[in-house]
Every structure is written in structure tokens, then in C-alpha cells.
């Protein structure tokens, strides 16, 4: 669904690249965490998927399409296939919950009746039924993030990108949000989530891609926030460490363990 081929992103010629020859493939229906220290390039990765920025070199493929080859007037169509959620929710303060979610459908020209049918359904998915008429300031942070998630997925994108969606939330609320994201993932949406939240990553046991200074230093399935053996050169042993678990169920991501990219 998302494929990075040797992608390098340089913002500032004098500084090191934000992403440095990244090779990575995230399959349809997968759930992947992007982890790494601040400034390691997680947000840059997500921005490249959205074509908010262009890669300095290398190619980014989204749903089989090289995003560099998408003409600017077709970028909106690319973005309709991708939902995005941020740490700061980005709701419209003067619109209520229903209107915030409906906004995403209005701007792409969905009809009133489709909106009336779809929005409550999506709000139910994120666990906000009955709160349609609340204003954002009348909601808790977790509820606001649910609204943001509802807005991101209301047009049924194939991909959901989340940039530290739980960054402003307490652990319990965060787990609630993760439940929502997991449910959306179960429905077939590919989810990529950048996070610093080790508890969540450890709890979820999904694929983990770790970046450091723009380089992928770890890529493990069903992994923990910190690998026991995070060094790239020792990826063989990495496989031994986490591989066993992978064979227990047969969820997507199998066979990816130890595929630490060079």
C-alpha cells in the first residue's frame, strides 16, 4: 500500500537529511508503528506519503502510484484515499461534532443524504454516538481525538496516518483511542502511526519501524517499543527473538520480522 524506495528527504542542505535512503513497504491492511526519537523523521515520512512535500531522491509509492508522478490537480484525489490524524486534533471549534465530521464529506461534494447516513455510522464506530451536537470544547481530549479519527475515516480511505494521536492523552484514554484505530484497521484500513508512547506500542504488539536520524534501524513484526537487540547488523538474532511469537497467530505482518532494512 505504501512503498518507499531509497527515499531521501533533505530540507536543509547544511543539515543531515530528515530521511536517509529509506526502503520500506507497508502492505494493505497492515498496522505499523513508526517510532524513534524526536527529529528522527517520523512526521517527514508521513508528509511524503501525503505529498505534502516531495522526496529529494528516491520514489514514494502509494497504492501502487508513484506520488511524484501525480499532477498537482490530482493530488486531492490521492489525499481522499488517505485519512490523517494529529496530536492536536485540529477540529473546527465553531462546528459541532456532526458538522466537523460532515465537513470532510461536504468539501468533496458528497450529497446531504449520504452525509446524513454516513456520519452517525462513523461516529458510532469511534464510540461517540449521542454526542453529535456537542461542540469541541464540550468534549474531553480523547473524545476530540475520536472526532478527528471519525473525520479522517468518514470518506473510507484505504490508509490512515496518525502522527502521535495519543500525544496529548492520558494512558487510559490513549488505549481507548488505540481500540478505535485497531477497529478501523480490522475493517481493512492500513494504519501507520507515529508515536513516542512505549506503553501503547508494547500493548499492541504490532509491526514497529524504528527511525534514527532518518535511517530505519529496526523493522519488526509484533514488536516492542524498544527492541532488545536494536542494532541493525544483528537483525538475525532479532528474528530469533521475536519470530516465535509471529507464528502463533497468522495475522498480517507475518514473515516481516527481522526484515530490518539496510
Amino acid at each position, binding site marked *: 500500500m505504501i512503498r518507499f524506495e531509497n527515499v531521501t528527504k533533505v530540507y536543509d542542505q547544511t543539515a543531515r537529511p530528515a530521511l536517509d535512503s529509506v526502503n520500506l513497504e507497508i502492505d494493505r491492511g497492515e498496522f505499523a508503528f513508526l517510532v524513534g526519537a524526536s527529529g528522527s523523521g517520523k512526521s517527514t515520512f508521513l508528509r511524503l506519503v501525503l505529498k505534502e512535500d516531495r522526496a529529494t531522491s528516491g520514489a514514494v509509492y502509494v497504492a501502487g502510484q508513484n506520488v511524484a508522478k501525480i499532477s498537482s490537480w490530482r493530488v486531492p484525489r490521492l*489525499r481522499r484515499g488517505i485519512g490523517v490524524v494529529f496530536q492536536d486534533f485540529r477540529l473546527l471549534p465553531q462546528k459541532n461534532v456532526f458538522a466537523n465530521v460532515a465537513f470532510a464529506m461536504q468539501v*468533496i461534494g458528497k450529497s446531504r443524504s449520504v452525509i446524513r447516513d454516513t456520519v452517525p455510522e462513523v461516529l458510532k464506530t469511534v464510540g461517540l454516538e449521542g454526542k453529535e451536537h456537542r461542540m469541541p470544547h464540550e468534549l474531553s481530549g480523547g473524545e476530540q481525538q475520536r472526532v478527528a479519527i471519525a473525520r479522517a475515516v468518514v470518506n473510507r480511505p484505504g490508509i490512515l496516518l496518525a502522527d502521535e494521536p495519543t500525544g496529548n492523552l492520558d494512558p487510559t484514554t490513549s488505549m481507548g483511542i488505540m481500540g478505535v484505530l485497531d477497529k478501523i484497521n480490522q475493517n481493512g484500513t492500513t494504519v501507520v502511526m507515529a508515536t513516542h508512547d512505549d506503553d501503547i506500542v508494547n500493548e499492541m504488539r504490532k509491526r514497529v519501524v524504528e527511525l534514527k536520524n532518518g535511517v530505519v534501524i529496526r523493522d519488526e513484526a509484533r514488536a516492542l517499543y524498544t527492541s532488545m537487540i536494536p542494532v541493525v547488523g544483528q537483525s538475525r538474532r532479532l528474528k530469533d527473538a521475536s519470530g516465535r511469537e509471529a507464528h502463533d497467530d497468522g495475522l498480517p505482518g507475518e514473515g516481516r520480522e527481522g526484515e530490518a532494512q539496510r
Partner: protein
Amino acid sequence: MRLAFILSEIGSGLRRNVSMVVSVILVTFVSLTFVGAAGMLQMQINQMKGYWYDKVQVAIFLCSEGSTAPGCATGSVTPEQQQSLNALLESPAVAQYINDFQFESKEEAYKHFKDQFSNSPIVDSVTPDQLPASFRINMKDPEKYQIISETFSSQPGVETVIDQRQLLERLFSVMNGASLVAVGIAGVMIVCAILLIATTIRLSAFSRRRETGIMRLVGASKTVIQLPFILEGVIAAVIGAALASGTLWAVAHFFLGDYMSRQYPDTAFISSGQTLILAPALLILGASLAGISSLLTLRRYLRV
């Protein structure tokens, strides 16, 4: 749906910065009023030129009933007198100064008079009899007016010889000067309008960056994102243009039509109806000023 959405966006945009929108309306109103005033002055000049102005320079008016000039002792011009005047005009002594000349009968004079004064009540009180017949002369060199004047003034059957150009040219040069001033002021005001529209759009884009950011993320097209801003400027400018057109109409109707034409009954003024042909031009000018200036602004301040 999308149209309804764009309209509601425009509505909220206009409400959100009312004061800026009002200033855009006023600035385009004033600048386009000056543009229109220049246009009106030119229309008025054309109106005053009447039928003959661009075709001839000198008019020899012939005697009619009740003329008191010395050459009119015999009353209205006789066919013989007219014949000999015609011969004189064709004689080599005079013909060398003339490109060509035409005879305007009383009936033709009445027709041209009616055209020129169609907006004025005076037209109803004039009959063909009251208007003199004339020879209209197109000079090779308009400066040689004196020669014609001296030759014909004393001829029997001639009431008077008039150099129309000289009469009107000074007035026209004043009016042309005034339209230049109006165009100059209009130019400055238009620059103000463009800058103000650009600033307004920029503020509007800034105050709605949340919305536009979200619209971008969920894949709204460039049109849906930008159109409300552009139309906001265009609507304000069109309102200004409509006010300007209304003002010009009011000036023509109340000032020229009522006041001036009573003060100067022998001058042909443009009608208020005529100023309405300026309105579409002003509306288009206003709309395109706003459209272009907001498009350029958005290219810089609203990433899509």
C-alpha cells in the same frame, strides 16, 4: 451540495471580516466612479459634437423667416441666393481652401437637431421652420476660417458664418482635461483597490487557515478551497461597481437631466439611460480586478 457549501463558505467569510469587505466595496466604488466619470465626460463631448462636428469646421447659416442680420433684408433665403452661394463655394477662389461642403436643408437640420437633443424637452417646442438651412464646409486648413467668414458674411441670404470648432474646442479641452484628471485619480484608486483586495484576501485566508488546512487534508479540490476567497473579493468589488454605476446614473439623471439642462437649455446633455452602458463595463472591470488580485494573492498565501 458543493455549490451550497461554497456559498455558505463565502457567507461566513464575508461575515467574518465585515470591515475589510466594506472597505473593499468603498474603494472599488470610488475608483470605478472616477473611471465612469471619465467615460461620462467623453460621452458628453460626443453628445455636444452633434452630427456635424467631426465632419465639418465651418457653417454658413442661411436666412430664415424673421432673421435680422443685414444680409437678410429680403427675408428668408431665396433659391437664387442659395444658388449663387453654391456657385461661390465652387468657384476656384474659394474651392482651393475647401475639401468639400454639404447643404443642410431645414428638414435635415431638424432631424439632426432631434437626434442631438433627444434627451431634452426643447425638442418638442422646435419645428423645422425655426431652424436655418446651412452650408457645412470641411476646410482643408481649419485655420483659414477667416477667409470663408469674410467672403460669405456680407453675401445676401447669409445670416451668419460660424466656426463651430472654435466655439466648442475650448470647452472640449477643459472636459478632456477633466477626464484625464478623473482617469489619473481612478488609476491611483484602482491601485489602492487591488492592494486592499489582496490584503483582505490574505487576512481571510489567514483567519480560515484551519479550515483550509483540513480541506486540503481530506482532499478538497483547489477550486473548492480557493473559490470562496476569490468570490468573496469579486462580490465585494461587484457591489462597489454597482454603487458606482448607480451614482453615475444619479448624476446624469438628477444633475445633468434636471438641473443642468434647465440651466443650459441649448446644450445637449447625455441621458441617464446612456450612462447605463457604462455599468457592464464597470462591473466587469471591478470583478476582474478583484478576481485577478485575489488569484495572485492566493497563489502565495494559500497552499493547495
